[in-house]
């Protein structure tokens, strides 16, 4: 006699167990990666075609020795003061061509932000953590100035504008708008951070 009932119902009681098993597996293997860091451009290896003459007063030299001490413009300096010194150098504005700078116009310091160069040198035995701290302070000096100008012109921080611009989830209409603004602020204080080859002595 054929059975009139359809296929018997599968017991779904153990579904939760199976799902839990999978869940625990993925919980354990998950690493929600937080990758963030300092973006830098290395200089190209080919030397420029012609030698560029740079006035000594437009270069802000930062030397780190193997003990992590700083020599800034031939003076020993505490790491905590570096950001302030770099900011003062960048917006010094000796030739008066920078209308938005608030520097002291010291004739023995940089002409204007587009000419100012920060040169960073380190010893082979310098610790990486010290190097990163110095890099962080120098980038911070640029960001402080850029934020100030962005606040004045557009009422928001440059770092936020740049992050929004680089974020692929921002709508393209907003990104197009931000592109010009970001570019303008970047041109006001172009980041010129040179890293020459390490000195060996």
């Amino acid at each position: 006699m054929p059975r009139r009932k359809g296929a018997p119902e599968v017991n779904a009681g153990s579904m939760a167990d199976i799902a839990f098993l999978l869940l625990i597996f993925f919980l354990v293997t998950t690493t929600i990666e937080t990758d963030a860091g300092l973006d830098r451009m290395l200089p190209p290896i080919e030397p420029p075609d012609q030698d560029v003459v740079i006035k000594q007063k437009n270069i802000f030299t930062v030397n780190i020795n193997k003990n992590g001490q700083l020599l800034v413009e031939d003076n020993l300096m505490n790491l905590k003061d570096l950001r302030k010194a770099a900011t003062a150098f960048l917006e010094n504005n000796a030739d008066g061509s920078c209308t938005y700078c608030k520097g002291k116009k010291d004739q023995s310091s940089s002409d204007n932000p587009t000419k100012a160069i920060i040169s960073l040198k380190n010893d082979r035995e310098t610790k990486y953590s010290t190097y990163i701290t110095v890099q962080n302070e120098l980038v911070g000096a640029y960001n402080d100035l850029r934020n100030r100008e962005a606040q004045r012109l557009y009422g928001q921080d440059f770092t936020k504008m740049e992050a929004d611009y680089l974020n692929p989830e921002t709508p393209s209409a907003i990104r197009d708008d931000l592109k010009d603004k970001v570019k303008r602020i970047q041109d006001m204080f172009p980041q010129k951070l040179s890293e020459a080859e390490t000195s060996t002595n």
Partner: protein
Amino acid sequence: MAKFTKKKDGDLPAVSTASLPDIVFMLLFFFMTVTTMKDSSLMVENTLPNATEVKKLEKKDRVIYIYVGKPTQEYQKVFGSEPKIQLNDKFANVDEVGTFILAERAKKPQELQNVLTTALKVDKNANMGLITDIKQELRKVNALKVNYTTYEGDAFNNLQ
């Protein structure tokens, strides 16, 4: 009377667990989507330094990773305790960095090959000598965009 006694012993009904699988599945799918399987296990110590002025590394497919640090305990007998470079799954010398970058670059699609970033994940106790050598190698193969990967935090904590 019988009516009342019946009500009395049924006063705490069991909580229905019928929706438990649904909840668990929801969590499961969340973790499945955010999971990124590690493609190489770390063979070096990798405590990154802190920095405040960080930028996020968007788009993982455009990043090449280089790890630097002291070999971990189990490898120290063979490789010593001086900081070493780890490329993918093995230790490497400085002069292998260039070929590694070129090989990784060749694996990527054509349109991404010019926008690659090299993420340097360096232990905070490493010396700059090794990093400078790596940077020199990167310059030789024209991989100029680098990212010193750090944790977010006060940079002055590095100095302790």
